[in-house]
């Protein structure tokens, strides 16, 4: 008896507070109340995504009836109602910690949820838990812009634990879902509940309401995005191409009005559970649908680069708008022949006509006069070789090559060997957007915008406004100039003049405008860029950049056709098609904000 008393005193007095705390933690559980993720809208308030409710059947094994027959009976019922094979159910339950909550069936249909809900009072130890699952409205149109959410990976979970991320939380993986994660996520709430040994909630002790994520209004216009996607898709199909991209921006503000990369893929697969096979086929598709070409596809700009060379030549005083140079079929540089696209001479011409006819030999001469270092300076000033800061991860920079870069990357031990040295040939092909130059469709759109607005390179943005749950604006679009092209108004004007000539008679390109009934009021430039090495008959990509109207530009765009062979025929009509929609719906597109 004495021994019992001593042991009792030890437990209840010496260990009392520790064991009392254990009793509390036994019975008090913190339940996380998931915050609703912010909804993403287009610039007019059209929702592009929704949080659809999905129900999960949760069982606490210890909470099941203790009688074996009753338990078996209950599992049969759950198995039938939730559509889960019984052995699988039993396996999941009896390998788990008996006092944990086991998800036995997720993604129930409405009918299943109703059927189980009805029987819930008699199903001891079984509960239904609601989760919100991200569902994208038009994944094939908006997918590359919105991206998707997915389960947080272990590295992120560790990194973001302090921010309150749960180990099973969904987090933005790509697109603005990832870029705007901090706005969209919201703040989870919690509830401290007292539960009994079977996990049943007895009462709520304290709670903190969740704060939903911010509503984000994109700068994208849903209708223009759809039109851009269908114009691009139709253009690609017309010429038997499978991949391409297009970015439409406002050259006054940097707002992205449309951003399309094809092929697209169903982002809902990622939020609703994708099969291994489906994921593998996306991953190994030769057209690389998971690649957002608009921001991450890097290609030589080809002739669309010639405005940079023209700007450099004019501003550095090597040529004037009136300077006439020959446009021969080729030039000979130390025994190496550099061809024009035409096998005959186009005669003498000024810089505007050289742009309109896209004379390669004209710009070889200008590039040689300006030199590679100055050319690189102007390229960078126009935003080439810089990753744009836009609200999504994975933006690529492209490349502006220079002598040091070439030496470092040439891969030969002797960095002073011929292969590593910058050659005069590198300089003149640089001048027509070849050599080692790379850019992205997004950079091209911002380049077109800079040409449109007189030389200001803007930061592109996808976010028009973000509002918190109370309707307060927490983030508003503002125009940011990241660099200004160091050129006089006259220089830029001379370059723009060439772009206007190109789309007007007597040049062929005007045909597309006439055919579509779109006035050729603006400036455009095509480019057919060779890639995959050097030499003749290389594969090409097709580009078209454009801005309009000429006097007060309010729209600028880039069109990219992967493996496009003739930019005037393949890329330009897509841009004109987008312009046709824009002009026809300008009222709706430019109407007030939400």
């Amino acid at each position: 008896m004495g021994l019992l008393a001593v042991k009792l005193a030890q437990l209840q007095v010496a260990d009392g507070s520790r064991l009392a705390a254990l009793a509390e933690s036994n019975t008090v559980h913190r339940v996380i109340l998931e915050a609703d993720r912010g909804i993403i809208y287009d610039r007019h308030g059209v929702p592009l995504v929704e949080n659809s409710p999905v129900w999960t059947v949760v069982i606490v094994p210890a909470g099941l009836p203790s009688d074996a027959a009753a338990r078996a009976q209950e599992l049969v019922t759950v198995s039938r109602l939730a559509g889960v094979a019984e052995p699988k159910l039993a396996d999941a339950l009896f390998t788990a910690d008996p006092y944990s909550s086991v998800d036995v069936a997720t993604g129930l249909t409405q009918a299943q949820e109703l059927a189980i809900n009805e029987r819930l009072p008699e199903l001891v130890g079984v509960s239904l838990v609601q989760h919100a699952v991200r569902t994208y409205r038009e994944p094939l149109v908006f997918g590359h812009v919105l991206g998707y959410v997915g389960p947080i990976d272990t590295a992120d979970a560790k990194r973001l634990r302090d921010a309150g991320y749960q180990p099973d939380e969904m987090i933005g993986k790509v697109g603005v879902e990832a870029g705007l994660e901090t706005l969209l996520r919201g703040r989870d709430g919690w509830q401290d509940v007292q539960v009994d040994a079977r996990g049943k909630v007895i009462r709520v002790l304290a709670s903190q309401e969740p704060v939903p994520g911010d509503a984000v209004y994109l700068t994208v216009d849903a209708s223009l995005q759809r039109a851009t996607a269908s114009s691009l898709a139709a253009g690609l199909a017309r010429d038997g191409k499978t991949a391409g991209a297009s970015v439409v921006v406002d050259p006054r503000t940097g707002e992205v009005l449309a951003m399309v990369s094809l092929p697209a893929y169903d982002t809902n697969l990622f939020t609703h559970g994708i099969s291994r096979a489906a994921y593998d086929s996306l991953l190994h598709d030769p057209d690389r649908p998971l690649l957002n070409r608009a921001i991450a596809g890097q290609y030589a700009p080809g002739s669309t680069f010639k405005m940079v060379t023209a700007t450099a030549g004019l501003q550095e005083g090597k040529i004037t708008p009136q300077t006439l140079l020959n446009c021969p079929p080729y030039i000979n540089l130390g025994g190496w022949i550099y061809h024009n696209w035409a096998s005959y001479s186009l005669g003498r011409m000024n810089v505007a006509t050289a742009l309109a006819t896209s004379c390669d030999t004209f710009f070889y001469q200008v590039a040689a006069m300006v030199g590679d270092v100055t050319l690189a300076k102007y390229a960078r000033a126009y935003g080439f070789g810089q990753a744009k800061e836009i609200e999504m991860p994975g933006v690529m920079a492209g490349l502006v090559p220079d002598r040091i870069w070439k030496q470092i990357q040439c891969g030969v031990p002797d960095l002073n060997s011929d292969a590593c040295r910058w050659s005069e040939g590198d300089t003149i092909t640089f001048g027509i957007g070849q050599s080692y130059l790379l850019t992205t469709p997004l950079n091209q759109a911002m380049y077109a915008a800079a040409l449109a607005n007189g030389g200001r390179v803007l930061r592109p943005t996808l976010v028009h406004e973000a509002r918190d749950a109370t309707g307060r604006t927490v983030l508003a679009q503002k125009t940011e100039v990241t660099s200004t092209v160091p050129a006089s108004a006259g220089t830029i004007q001379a370059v723009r003049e060439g772009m206007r000539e190109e789309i007007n008679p007597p040049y062929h390109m005007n045909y597309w405008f006439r055919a579509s009934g779109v006035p050729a009021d603006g400036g455009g430039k095509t480019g057919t860029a060779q890639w995959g090495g050097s030499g003749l008959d290389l594969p090409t990509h097709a580009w078209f950049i454009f801005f309009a109207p000429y006097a007060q530009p309010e729209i600028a765009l880039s069109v990219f056709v992967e493996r496009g062979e003739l930019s005037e025929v393949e890329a330009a009509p897509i841009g004109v098609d987008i312009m046709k929609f824009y002009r026809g719906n300008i009222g709706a597109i430019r109407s007030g904000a939400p």
Partner: protein
Amino acid sequence: MTRRLDRTQALLAGALAVLGVMTVYSAHADWNRQILWVLLGAAAYVAATVYDYRRLSSIAPTLYGAMLLMLVAVHLAGHSALGARRWLSVAGFPLEPSEISKLILVLVLAAYLARHEQISWRVFGGGLALLVPPAYLVLAQPDLGTTMVIAAVTLGMLYLGGARPAQLLAVVAACAVALPLLPRLLHGYQRRRLEIFLDPNQDPLGAGYNLLQARIAVGSGGMFGRGWLQGLQGQLGFVPERATDFVFATFAEEFGLLGSLVLLTAFGVLLIRVLRAASVAPDRFGELLAGGAFVMVFVQVIQNVGMNIGLMPIAGIPLPLISYGGSATITTLAALGLVQSVVVRRRPVVHPESERRGLGTISRRAQA
């Protein structure tokens, strides 16, 4: 006759039964039924007090036979719960013969040992032989706890009856020899319980759960307890078998160290009163009967409280008068009633010549 009653004993038995009902109520068991059991037990107590216990001596063989019959019946027609077959259904009420067998064995052994002034090796062996059939039948239910209780009752009564140290040592030696065989004799869950007793943390959510949760409940009571109906562990069901095997944990959480010590003191005083009854018994049968009742209650209190606080391995034994359960409650009250019957019929004066060999041994040994 009422003037000769041991009022302290009756009062303590009543108080403990009331505490029992309160605790059972707090543990969310069927307390209405427990009240019924207590009332039936009180009736049995009164009946046993009035009844002249000496007449039981002659019907002991019959009782022994009836006990074995019930224990066999459990195997043939018993209800099972939690993996053991322990209950018979009598007129719709569950009857647990192993509980009743504790008292019957006390009676039978008292009657048997009363006939032998000297505990020869033959008599000692006979006492053990009386234990074997019921022990086997109870162990096979399986019910290790009750088997241990009736074995302890037998040894205790042999000791109180005057068994020589050599005889008891022989039993201890036999047990020591049999001990290595124990793991093989035990059921899987029984072996597991022993291992868990030695280290409850090795499986905190599995087999060690019961022990750990009970210990947490006891500890969280602290000095003054969380208050009646305020226990977390007991109220919310974390304490397993909170109304029966682990009722003490439920009690200790709500009434704290103070309440637990009051409860233990109440049991202590009650047991002293029962021992006193043995010392004033008019005959050796009465003396052994009270002594047996003492051992029966004592062993169960020690084992149950000990297991609740982690001093003893887990074995399904009720805390007398506190745990929910009809057979146990009625058996305990009937046993205390029989002790009262002995007290009522005590010799008016303690004569010096009554200090013979045999009589008086119990009080001497119990004080040791």
